[in-house]
C-alpha cells in the first residue's frame, strides 16, 4: 500500500473563519467551548445513522480491512447550486398544512425505515449528492495506514515479516465518549447557544475534540453523538484524575473607572473580547496554529472532505482529524482526535524512518542517536516485529550489559 500521506510541503491549516467563540461552560473537569456561526451553511447538511453491529470490518483497500467498534456514521447531503439542502431522513410532514400550520392532532405516520447495514467503505457515495462516512474512523484509519507498507528498501536490519507484510496488523486503542468520566453529564447540562455549530471539549484543560458542523440544526441533533466518538487514552486518564477546573469568571476590577452604565457596557464587551482572544490564541493554539498534511478523500460539490495528520512533534499537542472545507478552505465540518504521547512517538518514528528511506543508521544520525538506541526506541514504541530478531537481541544485550 502506498503511503497515504506523501511527505510534501505542509499546506493545510484549520481555518475557523465564520465561527465565533462564546464563553465556556464548565462541569467538573470538563470545559465546553461553543462555536457559533452567525451565518449557517445551508447547502451542506449532516445526519447521523446508528449501526447495530458490535464492531465492523470495513475494507479500505485490496486485502486490507479496518476493524473497529463503529457505533454510528454520518450522511452528508449537499446541493450544487447553493440552494439549501435537507438533512438525510428529512420528511415533508403531511400533517402540516401548506401554510405550515399544524392541523389535526393526528400523530404523523411513522418514518420509513432506513436500512441499516454494516458500512462497506469508510466514505461511500450513496447518490449524486450524498456521501456516507464514518466520523473519526476516517481520520484514525489515515493514522493507522501511515507508512503501512513498511520498509521501502530491504535493508538487512528489517525482518522478513516487515518486508513482506509491512506494519500489518497495526492497532491503536481508544475509549468511547461514554467511558470518559464526566463527559456525559457535561454534555447534558450544557446550554446550547443559538446558532451554535460547533464545540471544543477540554478535559482537564487539554483539548480533547474539536467538532464543527455546517448548520445549527445539525449540531442540535448531533450534540449527544460526541458521546459515541473516540477519545484517546490521554483524555480518558485526564478525566479520571482531573480535579474540577475553575471557571474563567468575568472580572471588571481592572476595567478602569466606571461612572455610567455605558462605561459598564463597554467593560463588559471588553471582557467578552478578552475571553475570545485568550481562547483562540492560547487554549486552542495547539490545534489552530499548526500546519497539517491533508489528503482529499472525496469532493462534495463545492466542498472537499479530507483527512489530515499533524507533523508529529513529540511532547506537544497533536491532533489528527477530518474536515470538510469549502472552496476557500473554510471549515464546514471538523472532527479531531487528540493523540496520546505514545501515539505521537509512533507516528514520529515512522515519519523519520520513511524520510530516510528506512535506513536505520542515517535515521539514527538525523535523530541524534546511535543505531542501537534507535532500535531500542522502535522496540519500546511497539515496533519490535519490524526488526530482525537477532539484530534486536543483539542491541538489547548490548544495552543490558
Amino acid at each position, binding site marked *: 500500500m502506498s503511503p497515504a500521506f506523501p511527505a510534501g510541503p505542509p499546506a493545510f491549516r484549520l481555518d475557523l473563519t465564520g465561527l465565533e467563540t462564546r464563553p*465556556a461552560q464548565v462541569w467538573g473537569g470538563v470545559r465546553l467551548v461553543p462555536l457559533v456561526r452567525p451565518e449557517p451553511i445551508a447547502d451542506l447538511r449532516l445526519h447521523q445513522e446508528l449501526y447495530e453491529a458490535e464492531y465492523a470490518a470495513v475494507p479500505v483497500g485490496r486485502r486490507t480491512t479496518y476493524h473497529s467498534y463503529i457505533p454510528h456514521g454520518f450522511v452528508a447531503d449537499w446541493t450544487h447550486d447553493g440552494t439549501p439542502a435537507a438533512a438525510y431522513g428529512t420528511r415533508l410532514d403531511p400533517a402540516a398544512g401548506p401554510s405550515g400550520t399544524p392541523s389535526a392532532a393526528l400523530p404523523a405516520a411513522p418514518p420509513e425505515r432506513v436500512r441499516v447495514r454494516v458500512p462497506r467503505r469508510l466514505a461511500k457515495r450513496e447518490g449524486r449528492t450524498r456521501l456516507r462516512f464514518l466520523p473519526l474512523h476516517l481520520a484514525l484509519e489515515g493514522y493507522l495506514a501511515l507508512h503501512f507498507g513498511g520498509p521501502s528498501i530491504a535493508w538487512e536490519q528489517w525482518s522478513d515479516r516487515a518486508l513482506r507484510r509491512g506494519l500489518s496488523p497495526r492497532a491503536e486503542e481508544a475509549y468511547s465518549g461514554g467511558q470518559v468520566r464526566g463527559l456525559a453529564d457535561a454534555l447534558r447540562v450544557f*446550554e446550547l*447557544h443559538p446558532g451554535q455549530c460547533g464545540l471544543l471539549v477540554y478535559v482537564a484543560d487539554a483539548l480533547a475534540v474539536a467538532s464543527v458542523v455546517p448548520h445549527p440544526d445539525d449540531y442540535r441533533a448531533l450534540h449527544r453523538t460526541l458521546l459515541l466518538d473516540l477519545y484517546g487514552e490521554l483524555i480518558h486518564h485526564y478525566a479520571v484524575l482531573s480535579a474540577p477546573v475553575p471557571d474563567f*469568571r*468575568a*472580572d471588571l476590577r481592572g476595567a478602569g473607572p*466606571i461612572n455610567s452604565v455605558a462605561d*459598564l457596557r463597554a467593560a463588559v464587551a471588553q471582557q467578552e473580547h478578552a475571553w475570545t482572544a485568550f481562547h483562540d490564541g492560547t487554549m486552542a493554539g495547539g490545534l489552530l496554529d499548526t500546519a497539517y498534511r491533508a489528503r482529499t478523500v472525496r469532493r462534495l460539490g463545492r466542498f472537499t472532505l479530507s483527512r489530515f495528520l499533524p507533523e508529529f512533534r513529540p511532547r506537544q499537542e497533536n491532533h489528527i482529524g477530518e474536515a470538510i472545507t469549502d472552496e476557500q478552505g473554510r471549515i464546514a465540518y471538523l472532527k479531531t482526535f487528540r493523540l496520546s504521547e505514545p501515539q505521537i512517538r509512533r507516528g514520529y518514528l515512522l515519519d523519520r524512518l520513511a524520510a530516510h528511506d528506512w535506513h536505520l543508521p542515517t535515521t539514527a544520525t538525523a535523530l541524534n542517536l546511535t543505531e542501537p538506541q534507535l532500535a531500542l526506541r522502535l522496540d519500546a514504541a511497539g515496533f519490535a516485529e519490524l526488526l530482525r530478531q537477532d539484530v534486536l537481541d543483539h542491541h538489547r544485550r548490548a544495552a543490558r550489559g
Partner: protein
Amino acid sequence: METYGDLVAAEDVLLFVNAAITGTGQREFHSGAAEQQLSLDFLHTYMCVNYRGPYAAALALDINDHNAALIVRRLLETSREATEEQRRTEGRLIARRLELLPPQRVYRLIGELRRAKVNNRRTRAILRDWLAARPDQTLDAVKYRAGLKRALRHAHLRPAEAETGDFLYAPGRRAKYRAPLLDAWRRAHHQKAAVFELPYTVAESFAQRHGIPRAAFLDRIAPRLTALERLRLQESARAHGADAVAADLAGMPLTRLASYVLGLPPADRIARRAELTDALRGSARRAARAAGSAGSASAGGSWGRVTAVLDDSWSAYGSGVKRRRPLAAALACHFLLEALADEYTALWTSGRTDALLARPSGPTPLGRRILDALDTAPQRLLIVSDGWDNAPPGLAAEVLRVWRTRLDPERRTSIVHLNPVYDAEGFDVRRLAPTVPTAGLRDAEDLPALVEFARFAEGRTDLAELTAHLAARTARFLSAAPEGTVR
C-alpha cells in the same frame, strides 16, 4: 451586641429557610435525586440539633410541603430533646401545619413515623387531633384507605363510626353501609353507575375494571374532580373530547396555571392566546390582592417602576420529574409583577419578548440582561433565575457589584434575586453576588413575602431582628388557626 456566633446562626437559619422553600428531594437539572435528598437530610439534622427553635418556626413560613413533612417528622422523632416550652410551641405549629398539608402527605408522613417506630404520646395526641379534625372520615376511608388504616392503628384509635371500622378492617362483614360513600364503593364492584359517586382516583381503577371508555368516564366523573385534578386532566380530556372537564382557568393557582400553559404546544398557545393570557392575568390579580390583604408592604399597583430579568435558559427545563418548573416560576412571577407594578418591563435571558411562548433554550447571559434592566432605571429589579450564570460566568456578579459600589451606592434601586432551584452541593440556593440578597422561590404567589424576607439576606444579618421576624410570623400563622383544634 452582636457576636460572631450570632452572625453564623442568622446565616444558617436563612440558608435553611431557602433550602426548605426550594428543595424537594427530586431530580433537578444539575443534580440527581439522591444528592438532593442527602443534602436536605444533612441540613435538617444540622438545624434540628443546633437551632431547634428556628427549625420549628420554619413551619410558619412558606416552605414547601415536602420539607414541612420532614420537619414535623424530625421534631416528633426527637421529642425528648425539647424543653417543656419548646414542646408547647412545636405542638401548636405542627398541628396548624398538618391542617394545611394535603391529606395524602400527612398519611405518608404517618407511614414514615410508623416505619421509624415513632409512637410517643405526643405523636399520638397530634395524630388524634388531626384525624378528628378531618371533615369526613368516610371520604378518607375510601380515598386514603391504606393511609387511614395505618394511621388509626398507629395512634391506637377507633374509627369515628363502627361502620368505617368494618369497611377498613372487615369489608366482607356488612352487606350494606349506611354512609353513601362507603356503600358506593361496595356497589362499584358490580354496578357501573356507582363508580361515578366515588372520588376520581378511586373511580379510575373501577372504571378500568368495568371497561368504561375513557371519554365517557371523564365526562361523568367531572363533577367529582378536585380543582387540581381538573387542571391536570385538561389536555387529556380535550384529546378525548370530554368537554365537561373544562375548567375555569382563571380560578387556578398562578404557578400551577403557568406550568399548565408551558406544557401546551406553542401552536395551541398561539391559538388560545387571549384565553390563556386572561386566565394568567386574572390569577395574578387575585394573587396580588391576596398579598395586599395579607399585610405585606405591598398591594396591587404600588411597586412603582419594576424591571424583571427572567431566566428561560435551557436549565429552566428542570428535570423529567419537575418539568419546566423553574420556567413556570419565572412565568408566574412575570404576570404577578405585571399586576403589582405601575410600570413593568420584562427581560427574558433568551431575548424573546413573548412571555406566553416562553420555552427553555439557550445559554444564560444574565450579566448582559441585568445591564439592559439597569438601563431602564427601575425602582425595583427582580431577577428570577437558577443562578447558573454562564455566558460569560460571573458577569452578573460583577455587574451587580459595580452597580452597587460605584453607580448606585445610595441604593435607590432595590435588587432581589429569587431562585427556584435548590443547589444540593452548596446547601443553599445559588447566589449571584454577595451584595444582592437571594431568596428561594417556591410559588410566585409568595413573591411579596419573599421580597420582604430577602432584606435579611442583604449584608450582615441581625439575629435579633430575624428572631423577631420569625416570632411575628409564628404568631400570625398560629392566630389564623381556628380555636380549639390546637394543643
